[in-house]
């Protein structure tokens, strides 16, 4: 609860850019960083995220068991000093399995978020900059994907991706995770299009792709960074849901989703099989989304629907 009490003081200071009082104009980057520093939500999320990543990397070292070890003398045991998170009904150490699953889920989330943001940036910038038929076709495509829930498309495409490795899942998740952000980027690009510096570049004969790469994308980069951060949590959620129903990560690989699926049947009688992985999952996604939310506020504290 301590983080709740901290909120009001810091958020009021975050609202007003106190750094502008200096004689030299403050750069946008410095301003964003100073706003971020004053947002407890950012620190809570960042510390949480770093802790989860460090734990995923080094958490297995103090543990006596590996994810594949079976302790036949302690099958289905509740959390003890020997097995910190308890064991499954065939004696797998849940602590070790949770860390291995978390690693996979984290890798997927941390790759899918930025990848989807890049797709969103390129598609949105192309639609907004070129306009006309390109724009219309892309917008229709985006709207179509918004009407068809992407979860159903994932499940439909899963027979193909099941036979490939789990890396293919990353591209599948990124391939359907960019639509909403692409619309936002498109709207931004349309207003950038008529600015003088882009007009100047166009009249100098710079080709379209270079203008998009050199002038449009850097100007929407803050949005893309936010999207990449928020996308991490979203990707982990999609991955676990898919794996939970058996459409995502397949048997020899372990992710938090497959772990939760294995623990689901015993959720009421042996809750440690479900509660511990679920808590780690929620903590990870929550940290990532807090960081993303704080970033959004810091970059654009006055924007209407985004303001917090």
């Amino acid at each position: 609860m301590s983080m709740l009490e901290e909120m009001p003081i810091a958020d009021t200071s975050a609202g007003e850019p106190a750094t502008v009082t200096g004689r030299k104009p403050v750069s946008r980057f410095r301003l964003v960083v100073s706003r971020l520093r004053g947002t407890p939500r950012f620190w809570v999320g960042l510390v949480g995220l770093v802790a989860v990543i460090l734990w995923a990397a080094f958490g297995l070292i103090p543990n006596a068991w590996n994810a594949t070890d079976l302790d036949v003398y302690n099958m289905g045991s509740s959390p003890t000093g020997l097995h910190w998170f308890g064991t499954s009904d065939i004696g797998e150490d849940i602590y070790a399995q949770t860390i291995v699953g978390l690693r996979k889920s984290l890798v997927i989330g941390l790759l899918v978020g930025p990848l989807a943001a890049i797709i969103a940036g390129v598609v949105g910038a192309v639609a907004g900059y070129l306009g006309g038929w390109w724009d219309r076709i892309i917008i229709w495509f985006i709207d179509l994907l918004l009407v068809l829930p992407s979860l159903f498309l994932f499940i439909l495409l899963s027979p193909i991706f099941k036979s490939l490795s789990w890396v293919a899942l990353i591209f599948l998740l990124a391939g359907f995770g960019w639509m909403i952000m692409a619309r936002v980027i498109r709207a931004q690009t349309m207003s950038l299009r008529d600015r003088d510096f882009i007009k100047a570049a166009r009249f100098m004969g710079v080709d379209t792709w270079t203008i998009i790469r050199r002038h449009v994308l850097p100007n929407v980069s803050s949005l893309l960074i936010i999207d990449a951060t928020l996308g991490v949590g979203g990707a982990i959620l999609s991955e676990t849901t898919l794996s939970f129903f058996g459409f995502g990560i397949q048997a020899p690989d372990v992710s938090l989703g497959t772990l939760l699926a294995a623990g689901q049947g015993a959720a009421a009688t042996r809750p440690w099989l479900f509660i511990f992985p679920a808590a780690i999952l929620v903590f990870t996604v929550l940290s990532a989304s807090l960081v993303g939310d704080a970033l959004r506020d810091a970059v654009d504290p006055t924007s209407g629907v985004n303001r917090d």
Partner: protein
Amino acid sequence: MIGFIVKRFINYAILSAIATLSAYVLASLILNPAGRYLGRNPRPSDETINAILNGLGVNPNTPVVARLWTWLVNLVTHGSLGDTIHNTSVISEMAARAGTSLRLLILGTIIAAIFGVVLGVWGAVRQYKASDQVISYASFTILAMPSFVIGILLMIMATGLNNILGMQLISFTGEYTAGLDGGWWTLFLDRAAHLLLPTISLALMGAAGYSRYQRSAMLDVLSADYIRTARSKGRTRGSALVRHGVRVALIPMSTYFAYSFATVLAGAAVTELVFSWHGMGEMLVQAITESDINAFTGAILFNAILVLIAGTLSDVVYAALDPRVRV
């Protein structure tokens, strides 16, 4: 206003139609209905398999475009969506399941919308106060949970509650108790008891998302000049907030509702599966695991129609709230 709504409706109708048709084509390209017969022992002859697949209209040897055309012609002339792989008609399957899904969806969405709007407005009016912080962090936490985790956590809690009370107060497996005898009232109570947890699960997710959005929309409105004007001409604070604040803040909310409805549908499907309800979500997932192209398209059509209705409704709300589109 009518023109605006009709225009939006046609837009949504075309989108839904294209979504359904592309779902049919995608499913035809990816799913392999023959696999179900090839694995049998003894293996049916190729002629038998071909005959079965031709009867269902899903033979991979026929070009996809031809199959799509037959499917469309059947839909227009007979109003039929084809047969499932179990040789029942897709329409009858959908009729048996749609009620289950609709009950959950309608109740869950309405509760989510009401709670989301109220909590969002409350949080904006009391910005940075303790209640706002609690609502904010609670919705962040709920948004960080996959829907199946919410469902299972609710089940764990309900089991705990039932154990403490020593009786089956909340039942949560399936849609009703099988083989329950009794009058109309007993059956109704039984269904209501089963509906409780799935509805809470769906409503929690929706309310968390809506309240975040409503809060930021409301914050935007609160700093606008016309609220101050309304106050200075003598309106009470509450009246100014509701008549000039909430009303305006609901306008972007109605658009968000339409765009987020597909997410709600996916969440409802997951909730149905977790609580082992035999609804449209289960039909969709089963259709894919059984390589049933017709049933899959039927389920997608159901979803597309719901998106169409939700989108049109939100446009009606939009037009009712925003006088500019009525001109």
